[in-house]
């Protein structure tokens, strides 16, 4: 019969506790475009899909040639406004909005002006230059480029769950509004539905 003494028993117990504390963690780099779904929540793949869809649509739809036709080939100037996250998860829209902004700048079809906290910082620096910079390099007030359109949006979700099954639906809506007339000239949306089975 298998026999074990008290010291051995304690030793095995302590070794078990120690081993549990030192469980190895493995981390590997993966391609950013690789689809890895773990929990079923909003993830990098969703953000990328939203960015791709929105970028293709905003650069390819009629509002852009229409504007250029009305303004003698001038490029529209866009400022990014606020995006409301009305879903059940914490989502930062900056991940896909920044991709869109990047496409505006790289394709040079749309001009982009800074807004919000970053614009405040820029104005602060300009104010500082009025006292500290050489006059020849000092930037002047009142020469900022005024935006023609503001990009605003919202993210919504619907959750349907019962026992081991769950369907999550996300809808990302972005819209461009004319700052002069409040006319909405473009609406883009990306719909993502996920079926999660536990």
């Amino acid at each position: 019969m298998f026999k074990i003494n008290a010291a051995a028993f304690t030793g095995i117990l302590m070794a078990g506790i120690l081993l549990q504390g030192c469980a190895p963690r493995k981390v590997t780099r993966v391609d950013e475009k690789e689809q890895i779904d773990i929990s079923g929540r909003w993830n990098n793949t969703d953000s990328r899909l939203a960015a791709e869809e929105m970028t293709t649509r905003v650069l390819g739809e009629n509002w852009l040639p229409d504007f250029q036709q009305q303004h003698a080939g001038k490029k529209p100037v866009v400022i990014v406004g606020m995006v409301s996250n009305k879903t059940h998860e914490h989502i930062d829209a900056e991940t896909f909005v920044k991709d869109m902004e990047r496409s505006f700048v790289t394709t040079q079809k749309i001009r982009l002006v800074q807004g919000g906290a970053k614009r405040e910082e820029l104005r602060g620096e300009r104010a500082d230059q009025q006292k500290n910079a050489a006059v020849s390099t000092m930037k002047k007030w009142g020469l900022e480029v005024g935006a023609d359109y503001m990009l605003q949006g919202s993210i919504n979700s619907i959750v349907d769950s019962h026992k081991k099954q769950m369907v999550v639906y996300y809808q990302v809506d972005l819209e461009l509004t004319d700052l002069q007339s409040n006319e909405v000239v473009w609406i883009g949306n990306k719909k993502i539905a996920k079926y999660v089975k536990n």
Partner: protein
Amino acid sequence: MKKQNDLLKRILQPGLATLFLVAATTCIQAQALLPDQNPRYRESMNAYLFKADSLTRNEGTTLQQTYHAYQYFEAKQALKEQRRQWRQDRRMARSSYWNDYTYNDYAVGYNRPYGYSYPTYGHYPGGFRWNDIATVTSLALGAYILFR
């Protein structure tokens, strides 16, 4: 007569100047109005000029207005966690109640007002915890020594 003229001058001159200014401003405003532009646009403009800073502060950010969605497994897990917490709270309360009841407390207890209840066996000293490694180890060792 001269006095009357002076008085008229004193009253009329500022009055005329004000009238002229008002007329000039109205005229300039009327001229500055674009075709089809609302003549009362300044009322709105003045109202928004004061709050422009607060209205543009959140540009480029995400406003979090999240809601709590019911998810079966999360709800189940939360309930389990809640029960564990309640058990832990009960245990802690029991433990602190007995531990505070030292010799000195007994001395004080004699002078306590009527209605003071002494701890019963239901509130047995709460030093024992199942999740305590030392307790589990000592129990296991005890069982081993007893039944070997």
